[in-house]
């Protein structure tokens, strides 16, 4: 999480200094569930993200140096500079993208889950440790789109090993979730398609982890998909080029108080799981 935060802050710095270009979307404030989910995955599992994919990439194991190089359009970037901020891919780490149009990654994730199921059922590959799982991350705005619903249906129909994670930060760029969605409780859409729908506080990495453990285990055992809605908040604007004056300052302040990194820090110190010095060390390394 710390690495993610520091990484994104550095992106912002570079962008505002005029060294990074294009549309760059940063993840500040939302680190809890990317970490919560991805750290539970194995190397053989896949992750699909949206244009807000730097932290997903780094969490999945792509070297931060490669991700940063990609943001600068260098040939040493993970996609040889051809993809950029919104198209992070890594075949080695099973990061299947990086999609600029939200919702277009969800079917790709469904396809990866289909592959996993196919390998088990048709190719008869042995899976002693369960199926390869795919986790698809996307935002609240995506949940009003057709491809989202179509994939919920297909995933449940064929019991695909996939977890749909909704990063509900209440804002789709400048559109408030409440203004766009008649029934704003996204987790309820899971049961409508026959799968469990779970709502979790996305600012608390440990709560997210609990939910993630169960959802991933479900998928691995071949029990099918889960829809997880993580309530969260973006500390910065939609993209580095976007002023975020539509959001009210007191709302921002209340969420800033729930910063996942600070929260976890407090928890660790309270439970005496690590010392202050060790935590400082981690922050320095990040």
């Amino acid at each position, binding site marked *: 999480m710390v690495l993610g935060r520091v990484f994104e802050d550095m992106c912002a710095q570079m962008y505002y200094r005029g060294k990074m270009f294009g549309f760059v979307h940063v993840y500040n404030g939302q680190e809890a569930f990317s970490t919560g989910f991805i750290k539970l995955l194995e190397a053989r599992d896949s992750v699909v993200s949206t244009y807000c994919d730097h932290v997903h990439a780094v969490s999945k194991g792509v070297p931060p140096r490669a991700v940063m190089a990609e943001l600068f359009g260098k040939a040493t970037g993970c996609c040889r500079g*051809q993809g950029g901020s919104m198209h992070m891919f890594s075949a080695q780490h099973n990061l299947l993208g990086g999609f600029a149009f939200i919702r277009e990654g969800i*079917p790709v994730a469904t396809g990866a889950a289909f592959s996993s199921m196919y390998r088990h059922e048709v190719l008869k590959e042995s899976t002693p440790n369960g199926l390869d799982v795919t986790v698809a991350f996307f935002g609240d705005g995506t949940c009003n789109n057709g491809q989202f619903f179509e994939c919920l249906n297909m995933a449940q129909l064929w019991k695909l090993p996939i977890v749909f994670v909704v990063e509900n930060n209440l804002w789709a760029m400048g559109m408030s979730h409440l203004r766009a969605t008649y029934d704003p409780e996204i987790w309820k859409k899971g049961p409508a398609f026959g799968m469990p729908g779970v709502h979790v506080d996305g600012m608390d990495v440990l709560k997210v982890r609990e939910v993630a453990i169960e959802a991933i285990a479900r998928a691995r055992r071949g029990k099918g998909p889960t829809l997880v809605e993580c309530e969260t908040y973006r500390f910065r604007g939609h993209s580095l080029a976007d002023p975020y004056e539509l959001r009210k300052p007191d709302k921002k302040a209340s969420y800033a108080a729930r910063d996942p990194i600070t929260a976890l820090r407090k928890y660790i110190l309270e439970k005496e799981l690590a010392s202050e010095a060790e935590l400082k060390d981690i922050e320095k390394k990040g």
Partner: protein
Amino acid sequence: MAASLQSAVFLSNRIDPHRRLFASPARSLPGTKGSILVVRSDGRISGRLSGRNLITNAVATKADTPTSSTDSKPGHELLLFEALREGLEEEMDRDPRVCVMGEDVGHYGGSYKVTKGLAPKYGDLRVLDTPIAENSFTGMGIGAAMTGLRPVIEGMNMGFLLLAYNQISNNCGMLHYTSGGQFKIPVVIRGPGGVGRQLGAEHSQRLESYFQSIPGLQMVACSTPYNAKGLMKAAIRSDNPVVLFEHVLLYNLKERIPDEEYVLCLEEAEMVRPGEHVTILTYSRMRYHVMQAAKTLVNKGYDPEVIDIRSLKPFDLYTIGNSVKKTHRVLIVEECMRTGGIGSSLRAAIIDNFWDYLDAPIMCLSSQDVPTPYAGTLEEWTVVQPAQIVAAVEQLCQ
């Protein structure tokens, strides 16, 4: 950027480039393995094919020789949709990662019976009946392709793939590039398109012109049972995303095809009828209108060279160019719309590359820029008819 391209041609091992101009891929030739055919423009045949009948003005009409003994001829007769199925089945036998997905491909056997019998043989997961969700199941096919499978995605009618345009353009075409070459997308997207018999505007669409700009996508159009099977197999083996255009009215064409396995080259055009006076470039159903016109033209003393371009993207400029250099006159006959059609791109490509060889402006006959009407007579007039082709050649050869 492109992954390795399919290149096998069952005749081509020893054809030298000089003779290649005249080499027919033997559309009408019964199974001949590994031999070279050289067809001169006057119809003389030389090569190791003694005793074979070569039909130089090849028009696959309905089977009109039922009484001739078919047992003694090598190869087997089948209809175009059966040829597609045969190709698909052979590839599914060969590689267990090849799978099919689409609406009604499984239990129903396919809207045009191309996948009939495959679901009982391979199971419901390998021949997947999808819900009506083109964008998503096309995307699913792409995700599956990225993770090791080789899906054949069927659009029940090509027009339905307009619903899948997001996935076809952004993911199918681009992912190989935006991932820096890390992922390949070995999908085949296929389906029946074209103007049928009063199917109405929306079921009569020609998507080749809409898809042609998508970078990273390869497009081929089949027109005979022989090339349908060969192109299907080649498309499946290719690591590139390939769109295979079939035509609603050509599924019942009958032809005798080789028993031996063969795969055609995706990027090659097919010499249908060698000639000297004018090059007529066409594809899919219009090939038959052109050949019908050719009969009339031959009677009037013309000698048209007819090439079925087959590869809509990229164009086989080698075959086309050699023809232009010979005849100096070009007529393009296509079924897609005039505006932004395949013909427009082909015209531009010929002008860019072979301008000095042209003795006349390139003519292009395309369908009218209108939604296809329901009424039969109106529908007929939106599509290029043989009489128009004859008139165009006469004008071109003045």
